[in-house]
């Protein structure tokens, strides 16, 4: 080892000299537009939001706009409708993420074997992810959930089940649309995980006398662990922000039964015109998402760690 590293560092020696100041800037310049763009598009709006969250700002009161301290935060946290939105968001996100992950894993396992027409099937399975969320929500609302013309009632009528889905089960309706949209995403991540597995390891397990279920549970699933973590994390971050489906299908209703956090913020800002409170709620959601994501990731990792 040492004999190998010595000539290596010696060879690298002359190239690692400190580049001159001017040269460094020449190297960085091409990256600057991208950097500035990212800052302008993400950080400035966020800073504005933070600024507004400390202002007493209501578009209906032109005289408002004074510094309000943490009053906005206090009012948001004390608002029972906000707490209701938090609860709805948790149910919506957990439901959609877990369902789409389970379905995605099942589909990925099926796609991980070769059969005629596999490419076509894979493409078709991915398409829900490519449909615009608003269009998908509209489609589900009008052609699937509609109490009279809906496909769901038509399909379930032989079993004597009939319901006004959007009214009777507003959260479930949104969860189903989100699951339909996010299953391809989960499936792709799981498929990448399955295909990165060494076929010889699976063969070794078969020769070692493991039946298919045992191979999956003892060999494949531990291998998929990192992929599951990633899918959970990304899925959660995206689905917490769901707005389109709620807006299109239930408008947060009936009452507040399906109002999630983004829709709550929308109502505060564009129905109540209370920019200050909406901004405070936005900041709370960003902070909470960060904390929850980090915490969830730790919990999931340690769970898996104990098992293996």
């Amino acid at each position, binding site marked *: 080892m040492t004999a190998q590293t010595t000539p290596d560092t010696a060879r690298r020696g002359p190239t690692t000299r400190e580049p001159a100041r001017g040269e460094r800037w020449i190297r960085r310049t091409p990256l600057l537009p991208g950097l500035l763009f990212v800052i302008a598009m993400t950080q400035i709006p966020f800073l504005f939001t933070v600024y507004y969250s400390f202002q007493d700002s209501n578009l209906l009161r032109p005289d408002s706009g004074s510094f309000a301290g943490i009053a906005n935060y206090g009012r948001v946290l004390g608002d029972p409708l906000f707490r209701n939105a938090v609860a709805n968001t948790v149910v919506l996100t957990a439901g959609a993420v877990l369902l789409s992950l389970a379905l995605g894993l099942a589909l990925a396992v099926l796609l991980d074997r070769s059969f005629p027409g596999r490419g076509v099937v894979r493409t078709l399975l991915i398409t829900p992810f490519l449909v615009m969320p608003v269009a998908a929500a509209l489609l589900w609302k009008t052609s699937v959930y509609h109490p009279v013309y809906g496909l769901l009632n038509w399909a379930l009528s032989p079993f004597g089940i009939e319901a006004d889905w959007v009214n009777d089960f507003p959260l479930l309706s949104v969860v189903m649309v989100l699951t339909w949209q996010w299953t391809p995403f989960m499936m792709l991540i799981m498929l990448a995980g399955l295909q990165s597995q*060494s076929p*010889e*390891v699976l*063969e*070794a*397990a*078969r*020769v*070692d*006398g*493991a*039946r298919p279920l*045992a191979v999956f549970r*003892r*060999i494949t699933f*531990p*291998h998929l*662990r990192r992929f599951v973590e990633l899918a959970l994390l990304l899925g959660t971050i995206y689905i917490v922000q769901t707005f389109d489906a709620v807006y299109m299908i239930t408008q947060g209703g009936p009452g507040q039964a399906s109002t999630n956090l983004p829709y709550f913020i929308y109502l505060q800002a564009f129905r109540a015109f209370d920019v200050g409170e909406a901004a405070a709620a936005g900041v709370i959601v960003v902070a909470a998402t960060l904390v929850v994501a980090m915490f969830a990731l730790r919990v999931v990792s340690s769970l898996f760690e104990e098992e*293996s």
Partner: protein
Amino acid sequence: MASVGFEKATHFYPGTEAPAVDELSLEVEDGEFLVLVGPSGCGKSTSLRMLAGLEEVDSGTIRIGGEDVTDSSPLERDIAMVFQSYALYPHMSVAQNMGFALEMAKVARPERERRVLEAARLLDLEPLLHRRPKALSGGQRQRVAMGRAIVREPRVFLMDEPLSNLDAQLRVSTRTQIAALQKRLGVTTVYVTHDQVEAMTMGDRVAVLKDGVLQQCDSPVRLYEHPANAFVAGFIGSPAMNLREFPLSREGVRVGDAALPLTPGQRRRLADEGASSALLGFRPEAVDLVGEGEGFAMEVGLVEHLGADCYLYGGLPGHPADGDLVVRVAPHAAPAAGGTVRLGVRPGRVHVFSPGTGERLDG
């Protein structure tokens, strides 16, 4: 422990016309170490995978211990396999890796631990039992893969080029260890390699395959001294046997300015084929330097000193394009490069093959 039998076993890969393994018939006795050897793509690994149940048998039968296992799944065959990549379970410790098969067979934990420890002692793996495969060196991983096979006490060991990922030095020492271990455990073993030295040093018998067809299955000595055809003759031995076509003459075969005699039987069979030449083979060490007026002449192009031996590379005078002949001589007798020597092939050490089919011609 059990015998293994292939009977006209054939395998086609989907989408190919030629079989990967073509009517392989082979018997391996109980406790025997059989090596399958051949160039890449000859079907040796496929044959092993058919025996393991990882590849389907399109026609023919495979037997383990006299029982037909052609259509049984790997787990019903009671075999253990060592893979080229070792295929260790990356998320399990060495002990878990080795105990996995026993766990699957529902062996009780104390018994399992006892057997894992026993195998670990045998292979010098005891201090590594709690490590993950990632934290092991190549040689250690190889031993874990062996350990995983030994712990099971299977009827047959299958090994698919288990040494090809080791460095040259380790390969030689591990080679002898595996051969010694197999003798000690007495488990029937089928071993696949592309390295003819490995095949010759390890196997009780060696089966040479080419293009999915079994060429010859014999003891290493017999393969070396009595190759069944020109392919086996050229494949076994290092440096390779000198194989070249020479024109027939009235007394035998013309080699340069000399003639090598053929037996009446060989002459008759060549005549039956209508051949005007014969494919002659002689090993580099079957040749002596002889005096003027004997043997045939060779122009020495290159002299290679290896210490104990010395190899002369050269060609017949006036036939430089015919490729090099290789001859082994004692180091003190080595001539200088550029000169001409006269060579005599020792009687009985010339192999004669048909130029058309490559078949060995005897009698």
